[in-house]
């Protein structure tokens, strides 16, 4: 399954991915519009200072996802590998927040858990455009694909350095 990885050295912590994520998950998908409508878009990705640079972090869609085990309603579930929250079923008990070892789930004011959903509404878009955060990253620090491909990319860069 395709996932999103971050090259720590390339990430400059500009925050473009955070903003793009928030906008993608707003109802109008337009920053200006969202702000006008009084909606405070919530990002599901956060950039943090890290060894060798910065880390743009979101849900890893874990192979064995502790958030799914912890969910008392069944809202947290998996569809074709992607870990998703069914917002209708979430009651805001935050068992998933307790379980996630990456801190990648946001307990929102609306009493629903928010997390990376791998941009379902961008399905069909190709290449870097497929995910809002990847598309927005000016240094191509974010990479979408299999881990093996990401690793190969890093190895090539190591050689180049």
């Amino acid at each position, binding site marked *: 399954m395709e996932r999103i*990885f971050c*090259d*720590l*050295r390339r990430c400059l912590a500009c925050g473009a991915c955070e903003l793009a994520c928030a906008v993608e998950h707003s109802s109008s998908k337009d920053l200006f519009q969202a702000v006008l409508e009084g909606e405070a878009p919530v990002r599901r990705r*956060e950039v*943090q*200072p*890290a*060894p*060798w*640079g*910065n*880390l743009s*972090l979101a849900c*890893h869609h*874990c*192979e*064995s996802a*502790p958030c799914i*085990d*912890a969910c*008392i*309603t*069944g809202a947290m579930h998996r569809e074709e590998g992607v870990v998703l929250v069914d917002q209708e*079923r979430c*009651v*805001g*008990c*935050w*068992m998933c*927040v*307790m*379980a*996630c*070892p*990456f*801190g*990648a*789930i*946001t*307990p929102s004011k609306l*009493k629903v858990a928010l997390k990376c959903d791998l941009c379902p509404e961008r399905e069909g878009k190709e290449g870097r455009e497929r995910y809002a955060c990847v598309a927005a990253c000016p240094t191509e620090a974010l990479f979408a694909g299999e*881990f093996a491909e*990401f*690793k190969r990319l*890093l*190895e090539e860069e*190591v050689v180049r350095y």
Partner: protein
Amino acid sequence: MKNIIIGSSAAGISAAETLRREDPTCEIIMISDEPNPLYSRPLISYYLAGELPEERIYYRPPDFYERNRIEAHLGRRAVRVEPRANRVILDNGEELEYDNLLLANGASPTFPEIEGLDKAGVFGFRRLSDAKEMLAMLPQVKEAVVLGGGLVGLKAAVGLKARGVDVTVAVGSPHLLSQMVDARAGEIYRALLEEHGIKVATGMEPAKILGDGRVTGVLMESGEELPAQLVVVGKGVRANLEPVEGTEVQYDYGVIIDEHCRTNIPNIYAAGDVAQSYDVVRGRHWTNALWPCAVEQGRVAALNMAGKEAVYRGSMGMNSVQFFDLPVISAGLAGLRERDFDSELIDQPGPRIYKRLVLRGDRLVGFILVGEIENAGIIRSLVERGVSVAELKDRLLRESFGFSEIMPLIEGRGERFPEREYQELIETMRLMS
């Protein structure tokens, strides 16, 4: 292969679904004394409060059994397990044979040894039927007393309050939520509940339930009488050991399981609230009667039953709850009576924000986060993995703390973080250096 599962809740469902996925042809028999559809137990308080209608607390659709090709014996109780004969006896005398048996029959409320518990209007708070019976009685209820100030008792109290009942929580301990948090956090919740009109009386044990056929009040040991037309007993739970009592299956407060969720009998497994598993913080077997533990243990047991070796790392105490708008998450040695630690770090930046870390040497062994819970999962993972946090200590409670700060620690102790996601991160870091 013929698999029998006793109990059809968190642990049983998780096990049944795993078994079916791993082995499309095996036989699965489930015995449950509760009817279909399957509901989520922790959600009965939301139903009581009127926050969720009944359909919204269903955890699996009504065709769960057919869809997974499960032979279901519903409304039936397993009364005895016969390990030598590989047989389970039901309350109607029926005998069922198994190759593998899973005890997933959970726990039941503990009632104090006082007079009058049999009166109409006295409830435990464990089943959907409890919530339904309470709701049916509400027209005759003006006042309710909740005995016990733990998570379940308080959820019942808040639910009844939402229905307009005048609620008093009477607690034996000096503070609320004493299993889950310390005195300071307990007091924050006392103030919060009182603000919302719930009366809290601490240091109060019941002596007797008053009334003729129906409850009219509770006489406390202090001599005080609390009027009530409804009483909820929230004094903890005990494992449902009835089917294994007097058999070779080994139990203490719960059925003892090993790292494969197996009992001392090779073809009998146990999972969930009925089981006592290795507690990674306490370093010994302990009952952690929690939803996530039940689901994980159910899955691990089922994998082993299906012949796929799977290992359960162990459990730990933890919980998350939000009362009104104030969330709290705690884990490990966080309760009022825990003493087995050396030091603590405390931060209380506001009246409704409280953070406490509990350490033994350089290891985190517990924490409480009230109000700001975003980093609870990261901190919990450090408790669970038992790694030294010597270098991190001062940063853990900062608002800016995030996952990236534990990356060096993960890289240094890779063997404690075997999951794919951590290992990928370690590889990424190695390639950078």
